[in-house]
């Protein structure tokens, strides 16, 4: 396990760099949008990765509520945090593309609004985790994750209806993608998925270690154990008792 991580990290970095290279230099330039369209190769794969991570978060949360397994909870934290990062990438790269193409930074369109609401839900999830610092956090967070997941289809439908009532002139849906562009896009989707999985795994391991350390600290303060090898600490301890 320990050796697998650096190897996978190097492989993923290479894969992501290859994806960047393909997206920036190899993929053909789009006819009307020009080079700015290349952001699509990083924007859409980030979105895909974020959605996958949020899905992992839901599964881990349900697993925690059923099994009460703290490893599932650690996975839920890791996937939510990394998912929010990727979702932020989507929300930042979107306007960067929209400004030159649509002429506006932001529009309250279906996909934009529902992604923003999704981001808000998971940020509130992280805030809940941050503001509860005790043994109840996993249960509360898992429950909130389930509420968030139930909310997503309702958000989607409400905005879908709202926007079909008030049509917007922007967003060019449909259209066919050049096979070379599709190729680059799919490679980037794979690369970003690997990157997301890798970061999530790293965060998961850090979370587990963090908990182990916390547990050790709690146990130590509970038993008031003095490390045997450190004679000085022992003496100091005795001194403080006298």
């Amino acid at each position, binding site marked *: 396990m320990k050796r697998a991580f650096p190897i996978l990290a190097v492989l993923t970095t290479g894969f992501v760099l290859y994806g960047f290279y393909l997206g920036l230099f190899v993929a053909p330039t789009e006819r009307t949008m020009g080079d700015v369209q290349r952001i699509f190769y990083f924007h859409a794969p980030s979105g895909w990765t974020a959605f996958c991570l949020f899905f992992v978060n839901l599964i881990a949360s349900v697993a925690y509520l059923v099994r009460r397994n703290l490893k599932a909870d650690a996975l839920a934290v890791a996937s939510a945090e990394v998912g929010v990062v990727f979702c932020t990438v989507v929300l930042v790269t979107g306007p960067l593309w929209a400004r030159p193409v649509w002429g506006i930074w932001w529009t309250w369109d279906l996909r934009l609004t529902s992604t923003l609401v999704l981001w808000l839900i998971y940020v509130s999830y992280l805030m809940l985790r941050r503001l509860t610092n005790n043994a109840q956090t996993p249960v509360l967070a898992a429950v909130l994750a389930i509420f968030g997941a139930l*909310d997503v289809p309702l958000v989607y439908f*409400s905005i879908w209806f709202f926007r079909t009532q008030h049509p917007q002139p922007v967003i060019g849906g449909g259209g066919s993608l050049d096979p070379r562009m599709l190729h680059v896009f799919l490679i980037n989707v794979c690369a970003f998925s690997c990157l997301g999985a890798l970061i999530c795994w790293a965060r998961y391991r850090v979370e587990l270690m963090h908990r182990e350390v916390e547990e050790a600290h709690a146990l130590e303060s509970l038993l008031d154990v003095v490390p045997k090898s450190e004679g000085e600490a022992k003496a100091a301890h005795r001194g403080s008792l006298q």
Partner: protein
Amino acid sequence: MTSFQSITLATLTKDIRLEWRSKDALNSMLFFSLLVVVIFSFSFDPVAEESRHIVGGLIWVAFLFAAIVALNQTWARELRNQVLDAYRVSPAPANGLFLAKVLGNFIFVSVLEALMTPLFIVFYNLRALGPAWQLIPLAILGTWALVVNGTFFAAMSLRTRSREIMLPLLLFPISIPALMGMVQATTAILTGENSARFWIVLLLTYDVVFTTACVALFEAILHAE
């Protein structure tokens, strides 16, 4: 009468009696939403015909913010003298307690709405151009949507460090589809431009989904240790 009903009824009457004697929540909610009405009137011309399009949103934002006041003190009262701990160790059904709290908050917020609506009509020169009777099911479903999740999240935020701040942070993102439904339906009815039916169905779906979720998960929250 089953123990579920008697628990619900006992808690509900206790909460109503407490509120009737102190009127803390209702007074602060009323004054708060009155302030919102007055302050918002500076941001646009309130009697203009176009303000019809904005008022739907304004009314619900005022009610939402005011409801937070009632929701925040729902469970805080039970923390004194370890009442909630007593509930936890007693064999009483947890959902009976939850349902009583939701019904109590529903009544308080409904009273607030009934008292504030005439003021909105007077101050903003409102007149429904669509079918006005639809406002009644809309108000019931919308209030339930706010209150059922609000009560649940208030119980959740009890366990957090700064619970008064936490409640809106949890409640608002999840309530976005419900708020959208309330605001759009109210605007549709006030302007009479399109049908409010879709939004009322959406609110009904939201209420059913989240009431089920709250009832299913409340026990986990109450016993979270």
